[in-house]
């Protein structure tokens, strides 16, 4: 019997080494270890053995079973991993083939920039306020210290609807409406479309966008204006951004300042991009003129404030190196899909 057991083990191991698929392996398992298998058949004869032989053979039988089982498992693992390997190999793809197209809409570059500016100001506690684009002369000019025949009106060639109604040339009109309706403290930005009768070319458009800002409270200083705008510039253009403030004139602010950004290209040395100036003019600002405050029913002896206006097109074109403003309104897919 001992011999029989050893033969089973030998033949099982021999057959196992020849097996090449899981199915045959399973058949072998049944043949050797199954209920009607060879090993079981031998064990059924155990009863015929003497008391001395029985434990010895029993032990041997168990060892043979264990050995065959281990061999089976090892062979099964081997076959499985081989099969998996083959499958993976067969399924290899050309990963350089193009992907399946997914449609993803693109936001317009002007709106991408606008949203970023809005986030900066929301973070600083500025509400976003909107107002009419078709506006009265009063809100666009008169209330902003620009009576009829004011020379500054010349520089803002205006589209008129009738003598009293026009297309706003600036979103400052929204600031006036806000000051009339809200009590200080006021912190707002007013983004939107504005209109000036400039013919379309690479740097002009009869319609463009402005973002104007207004802060009114007790004790607002010109230093606050500088701090706020410097922060905006750093958020938009990076921490290393350098700005300078330069006196200018606007009828609705006093003192007035223009803010220049150090030219990215030449770092202030002067190059063709900044017209040799080293600086690029970016926005206008100033302390709100006391006449404007008075006009809106705010006492300039108690309150002060600052205002500023940025051209959205100018920032956007700078950020993306867009050299022709017409591209922004032409809406060619090949342009829009770049953003």
């Amino acid at each position, binding site marked *: 019997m001992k011999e029989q057991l050893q033969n089973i083990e030998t033949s099982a191991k021999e057959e196992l080494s020849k097996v090449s698929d899981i199915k045959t392996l399973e058949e072998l398992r049944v043949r050797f270890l199954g209920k009607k298998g060879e090993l079981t058949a031998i064990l059924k004869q155990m009863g015929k053995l003497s008391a001395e032989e029985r434990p010895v053979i029993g032990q041997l039988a168990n060892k043979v079973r264990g050995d065959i089982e281990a061999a089976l498992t090892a062979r099964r693992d081997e076959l499985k991993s081989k099969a998996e390997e083959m499958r993976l190999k067969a399924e290899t793809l050309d990963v350089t083939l193009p992907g399946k197209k997914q*449609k*993803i*809409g*693109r*936001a*317009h570059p*002007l*709106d991408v920039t606008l949203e970023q500016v*809005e986030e900066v100001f929301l973070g*600083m506690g500025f*509400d*976003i306020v*909107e107002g*009419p*684009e*078709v*506006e*009265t002369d009063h809100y666009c000019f008169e209330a902003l210290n620009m009576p009829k*025949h004011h*020379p*500054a009106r*010349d*520089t803002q060639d205006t*589209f008129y*609807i009738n003598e*009293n109604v026009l*297309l706003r040339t600036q979103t400052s009109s929204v600031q006036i409406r806000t000051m009339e309706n809200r009590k200080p*403290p006021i*912190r707002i930005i007013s983004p939107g*479309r504005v209109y000036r*009768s400039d013919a379309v070319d690479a740097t002009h458009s*009869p*319609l463009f966008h402005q973002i104007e800002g207004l*802060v009114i409270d007790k*004790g607002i200083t*010109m*230093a*606050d204006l*500088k*701090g*706020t705008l410097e922060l905006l510039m750093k958020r938009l253009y990076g921490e290393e951004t350098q700005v*300078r403030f*330069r*006196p*200018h004139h606007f009828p609705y602010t006093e*003192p*007035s300042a223009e803010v220049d950004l150090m030219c990215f290209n030449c770092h202030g040395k002067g190059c063709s991009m900044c*017209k*040799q100036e080293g600086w690029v003019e970016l926005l206008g600002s100033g*302390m709100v*003129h*006391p006449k404007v405050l008075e006009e809106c029913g705010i006492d300039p002896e108690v309150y002060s404030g600052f205002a500023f206006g940025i051209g959205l097109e100018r920032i956007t074109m700078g950020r993306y190196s867009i050299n022709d403003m017409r591209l922004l*309104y*032409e*809406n*060619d*897919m*090949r342009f*829009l*899909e770049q953003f």
Partner: protein
Amino acid sequence: MDLSMKWLADYVDCDMPIKDFVSGITLSGSKVECYNEEGDYLENVVVGQVKEIVPHPNSDHMFICQLDVGEGSLVQIVTGAQNVKKDDFVPVAKHKSTVLHDGKPVKITKGKLRGEASNGMLCSLGELGLNIHDFPYAIEDGIFILGDDCDKTIGKDIREAIGFNDTVVEFEITSNRPDCMSVIGLARETAATFGKELKVAKPEFKGVDGDVNEMLKVKIHNTDLCKRYIGAIVKNVKIGPSPRWMRERLRASGVRPINNFVDITNYVMLEYGRPMHAFDLRYVEGAEINVRNAKAGEKITTLDGIERELSEDMLVIADAKKPVAVAGVMGGEYSGIMDDTTTVVFESACFDGASVATTAKKLRMRTDASSRYDKGLDPHECYEALMRACQLVEELGAGEVVKTVIDENYQSETPLNVEFSADWINNFLGTDIPEAEMVRILEKLEFTVKDGRVYAPWFRVDIGCKADIAEEVARIYGYNSIPDTIIRGVANAQRTPKQNFEKKVKAAMLSMGLNEIETFSFISPKYFDKIALPADSKLRNTVTIMNPLGEDTSVMRTTIVPSILEVVGRNYSYRNPECYVFELGNEYIPVEGEVLPNEPVRLGIGFYDTETGADFYTLKGMVEGLMNAVGAENIEYERPADDCEFDEVSAFHPGRCAVVKVDGRQIGIFGELHPKVMENYGIEARTYAAKINIPELMELSCDTKTYKPLPKFPATTRDLSVVCDEEVPAAVLEKVIRKAVGGILESVTLFDVYRGEQIEAGKKSVSYSISMRSLEGTLTDDQADKAMEKAVKELSAIGAELR
């Protein structure tokens, strides 16, 4: 304003490097646009003297010159000019030099001309970049023979020798500072900016005896528009060219020298910023000057030779009969200074800025004079300007100035003044500038600080409040020396519900693959025809621009649809294979009885796709996606009926257009474009468009959501195919199924619509997958079957039979 640095140096020390001057003066408020060195393109051109000149042996018109250019030995140069003589001093462009040719710099090198060596070139004025106005004694088509007003040092750089070496700085002067449109004004700014001394003396003249009032009468008929009129008379005038220094400065300032009297008036205007005028007394009829409004239909031929019709609101300078000048704008042709003029009237007056501005605009002639007057000059400064002109006449020996002057309508006033408080200024600026420093700055700018008030100098017409004084202090102290601080206090800000809603709509559009566009708010009225709008459509009632750039941008859009289609059509013409766009933009709707129109926000969608075969249902999917994204409920889609609120329905294919309703309200219209409209836009691919009313949709949508527990029990699904008449809309079938299945219905999904074989003509087979589920337990087959039986029965009742 072009500033000559040589001229500036008369009044203030300005020998700092030009870069420092430019950045310093810019940062104190006088912005420099650019600067350039006169004649900087000239290289290696020097003064030479002709020592010998002989005809060229091989030419009948050329000469061989031997020139002394200060190099020890003579230099041989061949010239074709006919005006050169022995001993003449001429500009010599040596070997390896640069001169101008046809306005462009060119290199000159030695060579041979018809066999004779020529080691350079003799130059004409043009080759130096000048013309005969700069040197009236020179000839245009010949070599420039240096006159006695030039430095004839042999070998000297030509730019220095003829005074063509100024630095010209171009300023952008803001409209509140007409005083800076002058050399003295900018000298004052320079002195204040760089802490230098301003050296301006009061101009004076000796004069000759005589009573000006006997020679000329001046009457101001409109004292509002003419605040002061000063006149002086110069007798025995000698008209001729003005001296080189004066011509040089005029040229650097961009003014062409004419003759001594015209030049003096221009010189004074540039120096003092006060426009002046000179008349020939011969042509002032009746020897009287009337400052009056023009009469209706009155005409004048101005100095530029153009006859202009005047209107009654324009102020003119007239003699006894006719206007001789348009006040503050331009003189008349026939009263100007001629070569034979013997007696000159100088006018220095103060005209109302707004009136000059309006007149100049109406006559379409903005002149150096009007652009100074229109900013509002003050009456006090007229006097000094006139004195300066008279002084220059004497200095130039150009005539005899009558001692007495005419001075009409002069009223002395208190200078503009405001309260002065150093504390207020520091609190306003956020600075800590000592009071003494403020006073020093203000005095440098010629303000006077006295008894708690600050008095502005006469020429500062822009001072009216404390903030103006703060600005003066701040700009000289330096804006960039003011600290940067953060606004104190906490403020809470958030987007408004409207802004959030629009953001949500935009996000939904982007997620569905539509690109955002920006289009003009104004359109052409022809666009209404392009979308086939009926002639009587309310949308043709527009907000119309009185002074548009052109018809294409002349009316504010009352519908966003044509704006979208323009973009789609443009992309098609660019041969882009697909175009998917949307815009969130305003429409501008006039409101009866209101001053301003309504400006509602609209969503416009447009697309075509030549590659993937997108269709009506692609568009409908987008509309459904939007409704889902904004949480709108109770949505219906139907064919536009007679009550359709959208006139744009005319733009759509009548069989492929739908109105979307939310809670029974019409919110939008969408569909395939009418073939005629596609043709109007030149699009050959099927094109789809939509317009959705955003404020209305916002009102009907819901952004508060409550969680519904996820189902615990499995769903049971049954398929159902029915055959019905072609005309029965799917929405009706679905409604019947929903009602019949009742509470256990989870979803009804249409998965097939079939026409053709096995289906009777005029009928269609519609297949639904119906999912049912109960929250209480697993549905039994019996429950599901009963629900389905009910659905079949009720479908049958409307003529849809089980297939």
